[in-house]
């Protein structure tokens, strides 16, 4: 082994492992969080596969079948025969896309307004600690519940029509936006608020003259990002309850008519809309949230 010529203080630092080899990272005070987390996740994964129920199907055959189905869906999308079965016309598909977008708009605007108010209450710098913590706790609980459960619960509680879907989607959206908004609010310079307060401005004046102008771009970016998520949710929820729209047609094509070609068309429509929305929201995020 190479004898090292080191100064005393340096030699004192060098560590060797059990076999006398030089260590390239210190055993003391090293950050073990990442390896530990990785290990836990790996163990859980192995455990999952060990106890998972794989069903009665022959996985190989099923995989082939799935590929064939995927082919029908992605490579042969069609509404009309020979592949499609004319369950839907382009008009109805377009109509229901518009409906889903309408639900998305309504949910997003509704939750943006409510979230703005809640976020004011949730921000530590604008509200009292007690109120802030209470709002944050409630919001965390709401956020923990999957959107689809909210929608199903509202469906039985309120009944029919788009209200249940809108409220269900909005609730989760509100929780998300409240968190994002209040984080934006908390980032604003406390001095500005203090300055306005010192000149005798009231709460709402401070909010609209200092807080809102200072954060509006971030709020808009978050709102748009949520718009994108809400669209996805509206599609998913449409499959189950309430508002119908493109999601319901997707569900019908899949579970009622078993026509993957028609599913394919609807999927492409969803992808197209999602692409467009994503393009905008990625831009906004780059511009106003990450770089700000």
């Amino acid at each position, binding site marked *: 082994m190479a004898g090292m010529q080191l100064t005393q203080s340096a030699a004192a630092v060098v560590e060797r492992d059990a076999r006398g080899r030089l260590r390239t990272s210190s055993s003391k005070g090293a950050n073990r969080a990442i390896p530990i987390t990785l290990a836990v996740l790996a163990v859980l994964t192995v455990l999952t596969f060990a106890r998972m129920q794989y069903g009665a199907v022959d996985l190989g055959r099923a995989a082939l079948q799935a590929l064939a189905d995927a082919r029908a869906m992605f490579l042969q999308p069609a509404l009309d025969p020979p592949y499609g079965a004319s369950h839907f016309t382009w008009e109805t598909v377009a109509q229901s896309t518009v409906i889903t977008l309408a639900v998305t708009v309504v949910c997003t605007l509704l939750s943006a307004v409510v979230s703005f108010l809640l976020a004011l209450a949730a921000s530590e710098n604008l509200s009292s600690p007690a109120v802030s913590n209470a709002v944050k706790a409630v919001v965390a609980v709401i956020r923990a519940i999957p959107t689809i459960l909210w929608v199903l619960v509202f469906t039985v509680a309120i009944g029919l029509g788009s209200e249940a879907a809108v409220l269900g989607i909005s609730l989760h959206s509100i929780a998300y936006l409240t968190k994002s908004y209040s984080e934006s609010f908390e980032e604003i*310079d406390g*001095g*500005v608020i*203090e*300055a*306005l*307060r*010192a*000149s*005798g*401005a*009231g*709460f*709402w*004046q*401070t*909010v*609209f*003259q*200092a807080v809102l*102008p*200072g954060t*509006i*771009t971030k709020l808009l970016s978050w709102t748009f990002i949520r718009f994108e998520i809400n669209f996805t949710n509206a599609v998913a929820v449409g499959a189950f309850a309430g508002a119908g729209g493109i999601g319901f047609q997707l569900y019908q094509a899949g579970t009622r008519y078993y026509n993957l070609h028609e599913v394919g068309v609807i999927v492409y429509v969803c992808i197209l809309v999602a692409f467009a929305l994503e393009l905008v929201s990625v831009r906004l995020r780059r511009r106003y949230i990450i770089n700000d």
Partner: protein
Amino acid sequence: MTQHVPLLKITGLGKSYDGPRATGQRHALQGVDTTIEAGEFVAVIGPSGAGKSTFLRCINRLIEPSEGSVVFEGRDITHLRRGDLRAVHTKIAMIFQNYNLVYRLCAIQNVLHGRLGYKNALAGALGLYTEDEKARAFELLDEVGLGEFAYRRADQLSGGQKQRVGIARALIQDPKIILCDEPIASLDPKSSRMVMEHLCRVTRQHGIACVVNLHQVDFALEFSDRIIGLREGEKVFEGTPDEVTPQVIARIYEGDEEALVDVEVAGPAPLASGVPVADVSAVGVGATAPGGAQ
């Protein structure tokens, strides 16, 4: 009835912080008495942590004082409720080290924020100012030399310009007194002088009293009518600039390691222009040195 009512009468003002931080010195401010007359220009000096900011903020109750009283125009404001405090705040303007402008709004809008205290919630929130208010805002901006920059966004202004917007914002409040917490600490010497000159001129012109926290002793001596020295939360000096001898400076900054003043070397006021005390004193340790420190 005819008895003289000072603009601001401060008696036994004190603030103590509790909590884990409060190990050694619980009192950030203790038993400060003073009186500010209308139109006076008072500088508060003292080492870092002496309680200058605490003193200033206790006056308009941005910090709640824990003892003592603040009487403004004959009215004890120490225990006013929030609502009533708003009216008092319109009369006591404030200027900050970091300008505290809303950066996404333009200069004129920031100036107009000074009027919010006079407006109802809705009009203020929507930014509905009267024509008179707007006209006055433009005048004041022009007065501090920023007429051309009215529509410039605040974040596009230089530090000195920002602070002058801050001055205009304070002036439009029609205040009786302006409290300034180290208004020039973030500025270069040239901008500092300009801001101090503007501040001094407009307050004298409008007959507004002014209390300025300063690190720069030379500026304090140059511009103010009266100087208050704080150390470890207590008032250790009060007097005219003429009375500020090197010994006084040493007493105020004594014990503060960063700001030991060599009394022999440092001449009488004014000290070298624009250079904070900490720099001047880096020269050496003089007569009143570390023995007195605590």
